[in-house]
Structures are given as structure tokens and as C-alpha cells.
């Protein structure tokens, strides 16, 4: 490249201030309010948007840690093929059995807090139904940019969220009889085993998709859950309506402008 890159949006440095009033916008969180105590501000650089404020990130990773601990300790007890591999990680079979319900309780409580944090953003809308109808197009990357109606979360994310919420509830309800089999009795335990397993199957399937989408499948997404921010380009690519809400700008117009700039730069380079 002959001209030095002014920034990651490919804009000339001189235009930056005029094009993007970053100082004000960058402090905004998903619901348009300024992040509490301005903590997110420290992490935000120019042309970034705060996607997940600190409390959301902490909550997410608390959920994740408890989930993984529950998953592994549960799998150890769940399958004879995994028993010998995994139980030593938790200090042997009896310790695995002792810890699993506590890990799971931690998961359920942390996730309940996440539900309280997110239930408004996760409310299902007709746009999400519309999004689900074109799931094939999403999976096959038919369009490079998401349709303009996609807000802070898309239909798939909401589906995953509510699947986990329902599964967590099933896990809790079926887990208690397995934790205290003598109190709940044989019949309740017999049903619980199956419910617990089905919840595990559903949750596990979603978990794989979640990890993949959050890392490999969408560059830039992982950063939103670690340092909390995403680039503006990330926002108009994956969540155009959120981009509009957060910045007050038109995602399509900004995308077109960025594309034009990129083409112009490519011509210049030639």
C-alpha cells in the first residue's frame, strides 16, 4: 500500500473528526445511555462502539465459567466413556459428584442475572421471525451485510438465549431430585434423568454454535465480549439497526461510503 492507512476504516486522517464525532458516541452503550462511571470510555478508541458494558461482560464470563465447569463435571458422571478422563480434573469421582451441583447452581444464578440484564434486548419481534425465515441465507453467507432490520441481537442470538434460559430451568428442576434422590423419591428421579439429558443435548448443541459464531465465524465479535467494543464497520455489517440507534447515522449510507472510499483507495494504489 502506497499511502499509509489513516485508520482501520480506511479514511484519510483529516476527514476523521468531521465524519465521526467519536468522543460523544463512543461512550454510548447498547441502550443509548452513557456507560456507568464512564468505565467503558477508557477502553474505547476512536471509531469503536461500546457493545457490552462491563457488567454484561463480567456476567457473561461468570456464566461461561460455571457453564464449562458444570458441563465437564456433568459429562464425567454422565458417560462411562468420559468418566476416567474427566473426573481426575475435579479431584476424582466423589469430588466431581460433590462439585457438579454447586457449579450448576452458580450457573443458574448467574444466568438468571443475565436474563434480568438482557430480557428487554432479547424480546422477540416480527423482525426476528423474518430473520429466522432467511436462516439459510445467513448460514451460507449469501449477503455480506445483514439486512437493515437486524438490531442489537439477531433472531438466532435470541433463540439461543431463550433456549439456554429454558434449558437452565429444566436443568434446575430435574437436577434437584438427582441431588436429593431420597427426598424426592424414585419416580421423580427416573423422569429427571431423561429431562436432564435432553436439556444437556439441547444446550450442548447451542453451545457449539455459540462458540463458533463468537470466534471463528465472525471476526471482531469476540472482542465485544472481552474488551466490550466493536468497530463501526462491525456494527453496520452485523447489526445495522443497532448501528443506527447507537450512532444516529444511516448504516447503509456509511457502509456505501466506506465501500466507495475503499474502492477509491484501491484505484489510488494502482
Amino acid at each position, binding site marked *: 500500500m502506497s499511502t499509509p492507512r489513516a*485508520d*482501520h*476504516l*480506511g479514511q484519510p486522517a483529516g476527514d476523521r473528526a468531521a465524519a465521526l464525532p467519536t468522543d460523544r458516541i463512543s461512550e454510548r452503550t447498547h441502550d443509548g445511555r452513557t456507560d456507568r462511571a464512564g468505565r467503558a470510555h477508557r477502553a474505547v478508541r476512536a471509531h469503536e462502539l461500546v457493545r457490552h458494558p462491563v457488567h454484561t461482560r463480567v456476567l457473561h464470563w461468570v456464566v461461561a465459567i460455571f457453564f464449562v465447569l458444570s458441563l465437564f463435571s456433568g459429562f464425567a*458422571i*454422565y*458417560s*462411562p*466413556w468420559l*468418566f*476416567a478422563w474427566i*473426573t481426575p480434573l475435579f479431584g476424582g*469421582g*466423589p469430588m*466431581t*459428584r*460433590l462439585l457438579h451441583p454447586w457449579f450448576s447452581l452458580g450457573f443458574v444464578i448467574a444466568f438468571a442475572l443475565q436474563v434480568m440484564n438482557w430480557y428487554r434486548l432479547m424480546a422477540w419481534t416480527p423482525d426476528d421471525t423474518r430473520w429466522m425465515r432467511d436462516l439459510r441465507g445467513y*448460514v*451460507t*453467507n449469501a449477503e*455480506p*451485510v445483514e439486512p437493515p432490520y437486524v438490531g442489537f441481537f439477531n433472531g438466532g442470538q435470541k433463540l439461543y438465549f431463550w433456549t439456554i434460559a429454558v434449558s437452565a430451568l429444566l436443568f434446575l428442576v430435574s437436577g434437584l431430585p*438427582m441431588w436429593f*434422590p*431420597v427426598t424426592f423419591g*424414585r*419416580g421423580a428421579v*427416573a*423422569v429427571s*434423568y*431423561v429431562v436432564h*439429558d*435432553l436439556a*444437556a*443435548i439441547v444446550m*450442548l*448443541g447451542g453451545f*457449539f*454454535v455459540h*462458540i*463458533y459464531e463468537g470466534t*471463528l*465465524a*465472525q*471476526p*471482531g465479535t469476540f*472482542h465485544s465480549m472481552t*474488551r466490550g*467494543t*466493536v*468497530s463501526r*464497520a*462491525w456494527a*453496520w*455489517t*452485523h447489526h445495522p439497526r443497532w448501528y443506527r440507534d447507537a450512532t444516529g447515522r444511516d448504516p447503509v449510507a456509511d*457502509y456505501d461510503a*466506506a*465501500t466507495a472510499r*475503499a474502492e477509491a483507495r484501491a484505484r489510488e494504489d494502482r
Partner: protein
Amino acid sequence: MPTGTLQIKAISGHPGPVPGDGVQREEDVCKYVDTTICIGCKACEVACVEWNDMPFRETTFDNTYQTLPKTEWNYWNLITFDEHRRNDGTLMWLMRKDQCMHCEDPGCLKACPADGAIVQYTNGIVDFQQEHCIGCQYCVSGCPFDIPRLNPKTKKVYKCTLCSDRVGQGLEPACVKACPTGSLKFGTKTDMKAMADARATQLRDVSGFADAGVYDPASVGGTHVIYVLHDATRPELYGGLPANPRIPVSYTFWKHVAKPVALLLALFAAPAAFFHYIVEGPKDVQPPGAGEP
């Protein structure tokens, strides 16, 4: 190991036949319990506690002769006492020696997730190996006879071993040795079954118990402890002995359907995500080169 594999067949320089030869004529062992001649003396309970070296424990008095309401982790053998009013208005004791039934298809073993915590010997004895037990109590729920009990202190589950240590040495279980009336007998399954059938026939034909019969429930593949009952049509009268003991269908589904399906999912979902990346690739931020944070 009480498996019978170390049963001596020949001895060098030994006069006469090998002691114990022929004991393993048939592998399946069985304890025979004739409830009709049990006198409720509890010698078997004491013998069990003694042989298995368990401390004597406090008993519960609840207006019966029964030592405890149920078997306990350190009390594996319990005579249940039930007062039964017969059709003619007279009362009779129904006394049954309650302990592990050593099912041919053991629900405890089926439910247990811990490698090697429950074993079934070729002679039919189902034995708990406490050093491998993780205290999850799946066996408690899996047992149709409500037998395994958790020691809350050690978080290990215990139950009657059918004196596998004695049987492995060619001896009868301690309870059988202690029984003064001949209510308890021990031998091969075939012999005990034949003896029980003969006794039931006698009870029906001679003693006037028209419903007498043998309790050897087929729903768990038969048991290695069998009862002769005055009234085999109503085993519930004998301290709640189930007429049709069952391992819940959900256990079979859980073990043979749900587990493999989930493991397959785990096995294939990760590669599926990986190959989606290979085939379809990531959703890059647009336009290309617009960058990431």
C-alpha cells in the same frame, strides 16, 4: 475374588478327592428364604452385623418387633414384621428377611455412572466396590427394592454383599449359617428353586395355603434371593415386597438412547462448525479491509 475362578480342581500329592470339588457345578448361587417357617428370631440380623464387622447401632421402636423401619448403610439384613388379618378374622405374622435381592438384571448396576463401583459376579452376586463409589446415589433410585443406602459421612453406598467374601471361599452367607429353623438355605439357583417349588407345593397341598408360591420376579430377570410366600399373589403384604419390580423405562432410554445421542452430537457438532468455516468461511466485516477494533 469370589468369582469361582480360583476354585481348586486338583492338588498335587493329596490323598482323596479335592475338598470343595464340585461346588461350582453350577455357577449361579441363590439364597432361599422360607417366610413360612421364619420365627422372627433375628439371628440372621445379628450374624450379618457380626460377620460384616459393623458396629451395633441404635434401633428404632415404633410399636413393632421390627428392629428398624428400613435397612441402613450399616444394617443390611432386616426382618420385616407385618400383622396380617386373614379372611377368617385370625391374625398371623408375616415375617420376611429383607436384604439385597441380587437381581439378575440389577437396576443399581444399570444406573451407576462410576467405573467399577458395582460389579456382578458370574455367580450372580451383585457387589458394591466402595473405593470406586462416588456417592451419587443413582443406584438408590435404580433399585426396585429400595436397598442401597448412603453413609452420609463417607458418601459411599452400602448394601448386602450376599457374603461374597464367604461364598468365594465355599462358605454359605453368615445369615444362612445362623438361621436356627432352616428358613434360610444356600446353594445353586437350580437347587434352591426346586426346593422352593417343592415347599410351595407342600404349602398348597398339605398346609392349606392355596396361594402359596415362590417369589423370583421375572421382571428383573429373576433374583439370587428367592422367597417362599404363604400368599405369592400379594407379595406387598410382606413389608411392601413389590409384585412386579421394575427398572423404569426412562433408565433404559437414558442409558441407551439419550447418552449416545448426546455424545454423537458432541462428537459431530465441533467438526461441523469447523467444516462450516472451511466451506462457507467467516462473515467478515464489510467492506473488506474496514478492520476490527
